[in-house]
């Protein structure tokens, strides 16, 4: 009988192989797929089971994990939820994570390769790994000043340290409370999320880095930089600035915002044209320089490039192939030119930093569970956008805007502030967008700031009226 027994043994061997192959397929090949399936609580539980590291502003944890008596061991709490929401994002059972909660997840959960040593230790001890801490570049005073200034409006503020690219403020209004979205009550989370989605103010949009608007007259900083770079213009070059500029190959005209001529004999210096935000002069200038020169200058300052700060910012852009009238419109920040608040802050910062565009960043340091610094972000240059001489000249021109021109509301006693106003039409029916881009102190800039206020009303003065005071408050907060 030993032959049939051996045969049966052989068949049982085949069954064994089937089991072995099957478990290997499930646990090795399909494991990733199963982990990502909806309804798999394990991944989430695993994250909620360990203490998630804090997100710090200075030494203040604006997002941290609090132990609960719940099945989900840790609850995420945000000390100033709406204020820091565009930075921290939320951490939700239902909707996943956004903001730094998402991009820095591996650090916050402690699963990053930076923690190899800690993890080896934990593995040995069989303990749950704790998460690392993320320190942001945010200046809490600037953040607060920007938030208070925006309150009741719809818009965004971004402030950058020009010499490094550190983001000092990233603020939006309306904002949302990440505490509710990060609660352990799915019904409350869904309710609140639905309310936010229905809100016409779009609070869930990360406005400072994602919302694209035509930059309007603030784009004249770029056009002026391109003019200086061409070598054909200096601040004192006299250019035409009539009441209206006839667009080439078109019956349309560009008007100045006050309907008047920009200077005696319809002539104006480049410096004066910028100070009074002369549309006709800059439209003419745009056609003199050409779309390529404008785009090159814009790109050197960060246009047409996607930045990860590490949150992914929307790509600001300059039109690809504009004809002559479109180029003229683009030169004054209209037509299809679109920019985020982050981008316009970068433009200001590049001029402030002797022409060097720095890569913007939001994460200063990563610390281990024991608070030892594991990684520090080093500032890095993106492009050399201007020569330092041209940058110095443009800075003087922008100081002139605030001291003698349209940006008077940004004046700070005892501080030389450089700035530029802007108002842009977003379309036929849409209300205007008010801008202010500034940096200070002009002789050694410590902060560059861009303020954008949507639904601002049509007047060119709105940049100065609505946006400039916020920019001033942020500058004061940083310099104080």
């Amino acid at each position: 009988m030993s032959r049939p027994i051996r045969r049966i043994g052989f068949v049982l061997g085949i069954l064994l192989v089937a089991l072995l192959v099957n478990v290997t397929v499930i646990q090795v090949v399909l494991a990733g797929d199963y982990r990502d399936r909806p309804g798999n609580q394990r991944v989430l539980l695993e994250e909620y089971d360990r203490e998630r590291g804090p997100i710090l502003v200075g030494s203040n944890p604006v997002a941290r994990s609090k132990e609960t008596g719940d099945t989900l061991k840790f609850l995420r709490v945000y000390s100033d939820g709406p204020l820091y929401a565009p930075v921290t994002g939320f951490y939700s059972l239902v909707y996943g994570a956004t903001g730094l909660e998402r991009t820095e997840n591996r650090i916050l959960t402690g699963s990053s390769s930076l923690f190899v040593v800690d993890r080896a230790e934990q593995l040995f001890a069989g303990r749950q790994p704790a998460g690392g801490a993320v320190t942001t570049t945010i200046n809490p005073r600037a953040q607060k000043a920007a938030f208070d200034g925006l309150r009741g409006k719809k818009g965004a503020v971004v402030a950058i340290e020009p010499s490094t690219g550190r983001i000092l403020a990233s603020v939006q209004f309306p904002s949302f409370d990440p505490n509710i979205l990060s609660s352990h009550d799915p019904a409350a989370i869904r309710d609140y999320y639905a309310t936010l989605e229905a809100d016409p103010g779009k609070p869930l949009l990360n406005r400072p880095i994602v919302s694209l608007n035509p930059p309007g007259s603030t784009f004249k900083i770029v056009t002026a930089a391109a003019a200086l770079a061409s070598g054909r213009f200096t601040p004192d070059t006299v250019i035409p600035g009539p009441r209206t500029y006839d667009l080439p190959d078109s019956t349309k005209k560009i008007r100045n915002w006050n309907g008047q001529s920009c200077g005696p004999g319809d002539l104006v210096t480049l410096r004066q044209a910028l100070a009074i935000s002369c549309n006709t002069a800059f439209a003419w200038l745009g056609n003199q320089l050409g779309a390529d020169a404008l785009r090159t200058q814009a790109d050197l300052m960060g246009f047409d490039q996607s930045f990860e700060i590490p949150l992914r910012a929307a790509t600001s852009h300059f039109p690809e192939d504009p004809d002559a009238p479109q180029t003229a419109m683009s030169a004054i920040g209209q037509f299809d030119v679109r920019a985020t608040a982050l981008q316009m802050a970068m433009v200001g910062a590049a001029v402030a930093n002797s022409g060097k565009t720095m890569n913007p960043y939001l994460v200063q340091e990563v610390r281990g569970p024991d608070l030892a610094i594991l990684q520090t972000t080093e500032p890095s240059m993106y492009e050399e956008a201007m020569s330092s001489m041209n940058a110095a000249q443009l800075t003087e021109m922008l100081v002139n805007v605030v001291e003698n021109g349209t940006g008077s509301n940004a004046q700070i006693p005892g501080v030389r502030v450089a700035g530029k106003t802007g108002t842009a039409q977003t379309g036929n029916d849409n209300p205007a967008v008010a801008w202010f881009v500034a940096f200070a102190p002009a002789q050694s800039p410590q902060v560059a700031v861009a303020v954008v206020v949507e639904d601002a009303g049509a007047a060119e003065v709105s940049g100065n009226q609505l946006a400039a005071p916020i920019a001033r408050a942020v500058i004061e907060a940083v310099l104080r």
Partner: protein
Amino acid sequence: MSIPIDVMAPVGRAIRKQPSRRNLELVLLVFAWAVGVLGTLQIGWANGVEPNSQLWITTGVVGMLALVMHGMVRWKARYADPFLLPVATLLTILGLVMIYRLDVAATERAVLNGSPEPTPDAYSQLTWFTVAVILFVSVLFLLRDHRILQRYTYTFGFAGLFLLVLPLAPIIGTTVNGATLWVRLGGFSFQPAELAKILLTIFFAGYLVEKRDSLALVRTKFLGIGFPRLKDLGPIIVAWLVSLGVLVFQRDLGTSLLFFGLFVSMLYIATQRRSWLILGGLMFIVGAVLAYFAFGHVRLRVTVWLDPWTYANDDGYQIVQSLFGLANGGILGAGLGQGFPNLVPFANTDFIVAALGEELGVTGLIAMLLLYAILVERGLRAAVSVRDSFGQLLAAGLSITLALQVFVIIGGVTRLIPLTGLTTPFLSYGGSSLIANWIIVALLLRISDRARRPEVTMPSPDEAVTQVVRRV
């Protein structure tokens, strides 16, 4: 009955010393015990439980039980296979460790919810293990020769059938989760099918040894394969009907499959006729199709098996959670005490393999499957090397039950085949299963001891009596 070996040895013939390999067995047992101690300590570390006196007492008790079994084997089955006992012990210990780990998770959860702490299952499983060891030792002590069992072939057959239908009896029969396979007597509940599988294996072995000549007779030839006579089809039809009965009345798909598969394999071994396998396979297909169309619960199992994701929140919840657990384990596992095995319902019984797979990874699961493979292989080896037909059939049958049961339950939990409720031998929480499987180990050791004994002529006790008579 018990005749001293040396008396039976032919005079003038030197007994060749065969290594008993009992020391190897002891070393392997110590290893198995050490694995258990380390596992328990790791669960403690991972969950903030300091090693306490209770832990040392329980691991000590497990060690003692292993030593008692080893001592009995040394004494009464000196030449038995040295791998059977350590492998079964290691599997039992792994089960105990995992049950303890699930206790820890349940306690943690109760503390969080503020509900009263549940009674730990690990201690009652340890109690069952103690009972199993007592029965193991008794079998080895009382049963000096497996051939004695052959005398009571039909007694075992009836007892087996009786146990099988016992859960259907009024009052004591109990239905749990839709399947009627429990008997409740006093404070104890018992799954008689576990014991029935041993009794019926003994019956099949005895019966087939007796009838195999006629069952092997070939009347009709078809496609070059000889088929049995029509009047010899009786036994297989009875087995088929009984299996279907278990399925219909007790709604126990696993046990039903197990019995029929066991009977057909043993029939094949006894007669060496492949036609029985073909016939059995056809009958299985017919039964499966009938069951699929006749019974909603069978259909549901198949539907959920084909697409568990659609039923992830109701009927497919278990299998989906099991797959999630296994996926979470990955290659090396979450680590003992560091996964979420308690998310799978019935994690310490039907789904203990999912729990092990989550915390020990595919590495651990493969190691575990290989342990079962060793167990079955050693059992089949004993079957091949023992000289009497009854012993051969019995050892093969017992090994096959073990193998089929492991395949059916692990295949179900890992979605290789539709899920059927069976316990995982040695690992699952539950007394009936643990006791039954340890009796199987005892019987396999008894048979392998007989197979490996150095004596060349070792007549059966029945024949021995005649021989003595003849000499006189």
